[in-house]
């Protein structure tokens, strides 16, 4: 069954964009309704999972649009990009990474998800979120820096 096959992965997508599990559930519900609604329009030109994922991501963005995403420029002038070795984060599991992403500010999180995980270019993200490509780039840099900081913090706590 279509839902059973893709629900787990799509739920993960929803959780990455949503603030909490309730919102993720709403996105998931709306997204799958659209999937069934537009199922006949799938042209078998790409992967079916990719097509569902795009619908879910678009649904998530529309949910976020309603709340007006704030693309804040958090002042981090004092903090340089930390030097992080791959072993510092290689032990992190999927759930840890999900938590780290969810701790990001909303704008950072959306741009990071769209660019790094979903693979959209900054121009595409700009069009999707009605922002400048430069804003998307700067949000990504800052999201990455913040994640690295958080990983370092985790490392310190562990030590």
């Amino acid at each position, binding site marked *: 069954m279509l839902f059973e096959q893709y629900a*787990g992965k799509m739920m993960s997508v929803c959780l990455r964009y949503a603030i909490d599990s309730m919102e993720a559930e709403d996105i998931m519900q709306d997204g799958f309704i659209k999937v*069934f609604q537009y199922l006949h329009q799938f042209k078998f030109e790409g992967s079916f999972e990719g097509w569902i994922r795009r619908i879910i991501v678009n649904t998530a963005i529309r949910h976020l649009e309603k709340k007006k995403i704030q693309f804040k420029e958090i002042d981090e002038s004092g903090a340089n990009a930390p030097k992080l070795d791959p072993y510092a984060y290689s032990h992190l599991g999927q759930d840890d990474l999900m938590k780290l992403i969810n701790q990001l500010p909303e704008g950072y999180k959306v741009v990071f998800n769209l660019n790094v*995980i979903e693979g959209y270019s900054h121009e595409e993200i700009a069009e*999707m979120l009605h922002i400048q490509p430069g804003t998307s780039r700067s949000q990504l840099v800052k999201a990455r820096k913040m994640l690295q900081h958080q990983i370092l913090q985790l490392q310190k706590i562990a030590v």
Partner: protein
Amino acid sequence: MTDNQFDNFFREKLINHSAPVPEGLWEKIRPEKEKRPKGFFLRKINGTGLLIAALLVGSLMIGLLTYQHPASVPATEAALNTSKTNATTIDHSTNIITGNNSTLTSRTKQSSLPTEVKSEIIEEKTIGSIPAKKENSVTLLPAANNVRSFEANSSVTKKEVSFKPMIAHEQTQLTEVPETTVEENKYVSANIAQASLFYQSTSVNAATGLVQKNLADNGHSKFIKSSIIVCPTNRGRSNFNSDWSFELFASPDYGFKSVSNVSASQQYLDKKDSTESMQIGYSAGFRVVKPLNNNWLLKTGLQYSQINQKFSYRNENEIKTTTVITTRSIIRSPGDTVLVTDTSTLQQIGYSVKTIRNHYRSFDIPLTLGYQFGNEDLTIGINGGVIFNITSWYQGELLDTSLTSVPMSKISNSYYRSNIGMGLYTSISVLKRISENTHLFFEPYFRYNLSNMTNTASPYNQRFQVGGLAIGLRFDLNR
């Protein structure tokens, strides 16, 4: 560590990450899925399906048309057969007549009289002269003609003596094969051929009518049944209808939009879909109706159509700035009054909704074939055919790919074609006579456009299928 390594780590870990799905989520989705509107049924049918349907309808119509033909074609064939048979019948009668030379001369003289009167006179005379043998009066006129031609040939006249007994024998035994010599048979055949040729060269209508009548009188019903001759001037044209009609109509229409993606993002299509909603449009025009026969008719004309669409666009981040000036007076301790004016600005961020009515207009030429049945008072018809677009244009506003509202007119049109080509048209008409030459008609119809209205520059394909109810008047001309 590079950023790419960092990103790749996240991507690889999370791209296939699966999270537990809350229980009962499917139960929330399933009812929505089941109650989801199916849309107009033709949206599910692709072009091939419609082509097949059109072919089926066409076959059905051709079938109905050919069903009419068996009645008329065999009639024609029967007419042709009877004319052949009749020639034989005439020959028989001719042979019979040649036996009585004495009466022939006087009968020939009467041949200048009108045929019907002549037959009666001849019959009376014949009956009077040869009461015992009615056969002799059977084919008086052809016989007279035949004998006249017969006598003109001197060589044939010589053999008349030997021929006469055989003829007499034939008079009494029409159905029997005469026992004659081979030479006589040949002679008879020659005579028959000559007689029939001559007969055909004379007034066919008059003579055949006479023959039939006389044969009937003489109990040759078997011959009559197979020898009914249809007048050549009427043959095959009995159902032809020389009338013309003229129709004026107007119709409320509703357009069914179908959109498919080409290169647009899903977000754009969703947004476009949510900003546009179809509204009632209209069509008006005239048609010339040419009945082919009592049932089939051909229609063509010119019509104008307008499909209406409501475009509601929500413009986000609208900023409204209000300047507030507050004036107050302060009484200070020495007793003087100071007037203080404060100026502040109030900024409100919200959204504005823009609502515009878009129009899609076109001029078209319909060409339909219809089958109608009923009585003089109430007629029902089924019509099918094609509709050719002459020109079409879009006017209003729509979203471009940057999700900005842009105006669209006949001149500044980058997405829509100015001619959408051919469409299929089908309708059912109900006509009610309201005066001698005027009918009121109601015609629910559906138009399926075969081509997209968008051009190759458009990031999506769009079509409108139109349904409506044409109400109009049909005026019968040339009646």
